[in-house]
C-alpha cells in the first residue's frame, strides 16, 4: 500500500486487543506459522492501524459540501459527532463480532485452503476493529460527546455474539457453509459501509477506509470462490454442500445483510452531514443487484458443470428458460438452482420488519403458517436455534398486537451469553438483557 501511515494504539489498549485475540482468535499463531504456505510473498499480517494519506480535504456530500473536512472531534457539532460515533461503534462491533462467529465453525472447514483464507480474513477483521479503536482513541471527544473513546473501546471489547450492535453479528454459525456464505453476503455489506465512509467529513475516519477496503476485497473472494467450487461439485453430485443447503444458508443471511443497511426510509441525515454519500435504500438496492449477479453466475456455473457439452451461450439460454419460465430441462428446474429471497422476506429492520412475508414476497396469513414456512426454508440447525425462538416469540407479540413492529425492531437482538467468555462452548445458556433502543444502524 503506497502513501499509507501505520501506527499502533497506546500499549494498554494494544495489549487489550492482543488479549482479546488470544481468546477469540486462538489460531492466529497458526496463521502466522503457515503464512508463507498459503500466502507466499504477501506482506505478513500486522496488528496496527493504517491511514491513507493524500485524501480529499473537502467535504464531499451533504449540506457542507466543499467546506474543509474535520480533522479533530471538537471541530464537529455534537449531533454530527453522535452520528459518527454510532457508526464507529457499529463498525468496530461488526469486525470483532464476525471473528467470534467464524471461530465457532472454523475447524469444520472441509478444505485446508478455505480454512486458512477464513483465518486470514479473521485476522484482518481484528485489524479493522483495531483501526476503529484508533479512530476513537486518537482524538478527544469530550467537547462534543458524553462518551469517552476509552469507555466505548471497553464496551466493544466486552461484546459477545448476542450483544453486538447489528443483528447479523448476533447469529451463531452452524457449519462452515455459514463462514463462507457470510463472507460472500455480509462482508459485502461491510464493503458498502466502508466505501461510503471513505468520503466521511471526519478525515481520520475517511483515511481509515482505503486500507480496510483493500483487505475487504479478499474477504469477498474468500466467500465467493468456495461457493463457486461447491456449486460445481453439487452439479456433479460430488462434494460436501448441496444446492438445497446452500439456498437455505443464503435465506438465513441475505435478510440480515439487508437489515444492516438500516431502515429504507433512513440514512438521509448521514448524507446531509457529509458522513456517507448514499442513503440506506440506494445502498441496499446496489447491494441486492450485486448479490443477484452472484446468484446468476453461480447458477450458470451449476449448469455448465452439470451439462459440460453446453456452450456458454446455450447454458445462458437454458438458465433464462428455467428461471424466467419455470421450465425443467433435463431434470433441472428452478428448485435445483439458487435464487435470491424476496427483499421483504424475514426482515427485522425497515418497512417490512416483522411482517409475515414468504420467500417469494407473498404475505402469509397465520403465525403457524409463517413458522412452518421459515422452518422449511432455513437450515434446520438455525430454525431451531435460540435466535429463532426469540424471533418467533416477538413475532407472536407483533401479530397479536402486543408490540408494534416499529418497536420490535429495537428489541432484538439483546441476548448475551453466560458461562464465561469461552467462544468454543456451544452449550452455554443465554440470558435476555433488558431491551435497549437500537441506534438505528
Amino acid at each position, binding site marked *: 500500500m503506497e502513501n499509507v501511515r501505520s501506527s499502533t494504539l497506546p500499549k494498554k489498549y494494544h495489549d487489550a486487543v492482543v488479549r482479546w485475540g488470544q481468546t477469540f482468535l486462538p489460531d492466529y499463531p497458526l496463521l502466522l506459522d503457515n503464512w508463507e504456505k498459503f500466502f507466499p510473498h504477501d506482506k505478513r499480517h500486522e496488528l496496527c492501524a493504517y491511514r491513507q494519506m493524500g485524501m480529499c480535504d473537502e467535504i464531499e456530500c451533504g449540506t457542507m459540501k466543499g467546506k474543509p473536512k474535520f480533522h479533530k472531534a471538537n471541530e464537529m457539532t455534537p449531533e454530527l459527532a453522535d452520528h459518527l460515533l454510532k457508526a464507529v461503534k457499529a463498525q468496530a462491533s461488526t469486525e470483532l463480532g464476525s471473528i467470534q462467529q467464524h471461530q465457532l465453525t472454523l475447524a469444520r472447514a472441509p478444505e485446508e485452503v478455505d480454512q486458512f483464507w477464513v483465518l486470514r480474513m479473521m485476522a484482518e477483521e481484528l485489524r479493522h476493529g483495531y483501526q476503529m479503536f484508533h479512530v476513537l482513541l486518537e482524538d478527544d471527544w469530550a467537547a462534543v460527546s458524553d462518551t469517552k473513546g476509552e469507555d466505548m473501546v471497553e464496551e466493544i471489547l466486552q461484546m459477545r455474539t448476542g450483544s453486538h450492535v447489528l443483528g447479523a453479528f448476533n447469529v451463531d454459525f452452524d457449519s462452515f457453509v455459514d463462514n463462507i456464505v457470510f463472507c460472500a453476503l455480509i462482508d459485502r455489506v461491510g464493503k458498502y459501509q466502508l466505501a461510503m465512509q471513505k468520503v466521511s467529513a471526519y478525515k481520520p475516519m475517511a483515511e481509515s477506509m482505503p486500507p480496510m477496503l483493500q483487505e475487504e*476485497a479478499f474477504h469477498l473472494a474468500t466467500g*465467493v*470462490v468456495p461457493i463457486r467450487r461447491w456449486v460445481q461439485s453439487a452439479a456433479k453430485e460430488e462434494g460436501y454442500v448441496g444446492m438445497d443447503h446452500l439456498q437455505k444458508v443464503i435465506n438465513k443471511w441475505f435478510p440480515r445483510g439487508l437489515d444492516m443497511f438500516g431502515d429504507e426510509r433512513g440514512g438521509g441525515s448521514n448524507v446531509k452531514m457529509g458522513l456517507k454519500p448514499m442513503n440506506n435504500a440506494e445502498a441496499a438496492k446496489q447491494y441486492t443487484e450485486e448479490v443477484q*449477479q452472484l446468484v446468476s453466475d453461480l447458477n450458470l*456455473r451449476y449448469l455448465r458443470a452439470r451439462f459440460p457439452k453446453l456452450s456458454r451461450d446455450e447454458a445462458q439460454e437454458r438458465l433464462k428458460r428455467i428461471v424466467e419460465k419455470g421450465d425443467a430441462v433435463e431434470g433441472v428446474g428452478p428448485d435445483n438452482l439458487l435464487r435470491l429471497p424476496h427483499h421483504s422476506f424475514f426482515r427485522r429492520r425497515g418497512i417490512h420488519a416483522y411482517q409475515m412475508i414468504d420467500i417469494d414476497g407473498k404475505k402469509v396469513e397465520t403465525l403457524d403458517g409463517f413458522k412452518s414456512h421459515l422452518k422449511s426454508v432455513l437450515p434446520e440447525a438455525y430454525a431451531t436455534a435460540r435466535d429463532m425462538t426469540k424471533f418467533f416469540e416477538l413475532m407472536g407479540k407483533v401479530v397479536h398486537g402486543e408490540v408494534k413492529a416499529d418497536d420490535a425492531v429495537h428489541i432484538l437482538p439483546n441476548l448475551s451469553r453466560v458461562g464465561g467468555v469461552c467462544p468454543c462452548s456451544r452449550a452455554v445458556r443465554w440470558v435476555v438483557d433488558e431491551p435497549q433502543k437500537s441506534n438505528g444502524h
Partner: protein
Amino acid sequence: MATAKTGEIALRPVNELDIEAVCAIDEKLSGQDRPGEWERRISYYLRRDPELSLVAVEGKKVVGFMLGEVKAGEFGLEEPAGWIEVLGVDPQCQGRSVGKKLLEGMLAGFKARGAKAVRTLVNETGQKELFGFFEAGGFKSTPIRTLERKV
C-alpha cells in the same frame, strides 16, 4: 460499482464478481472454459493489490481485463517494476481501444505505486498481434532474456 454508458468504455478495479465475466472473455479467446484458473488468478490479485488490476466495462458489461502487480527483487531486479501478467479483450469489442485504455490505467497504477518500469512477457513469433500492441504502447525489447529448457 462503476458503470459506463452504452458505447463508452470505463475502467474500474477487478473484483470477485468479475470472475465469470473474465472466464467468458477467456473462453471466447482460448476456446476453453477455465473457471478454476480464473478463480485462482483473480483471488491472487485481489489479496495482493485489489485496486491495481482492472476491468474495462461498457455499461455494466465487462469487455476486457488486465491483471498485474508491482514486484521488487525478483530475478535480481531490485528496482520496483510493474508486471503485466495477462490481458484479454472481448473479441466483439476489439478495435475500440479497450486494451489501450486498460494499459493506460495499469501504467498509471504502477507509477503511483513507485514502479520505475513495466514489464511483460510476449511470444514474439506466436503472439504477433499482442507484441504489436505492447510495441504501440511504448514497450521495447530489453537485454533481459527468458531462458527455458525442456524437462
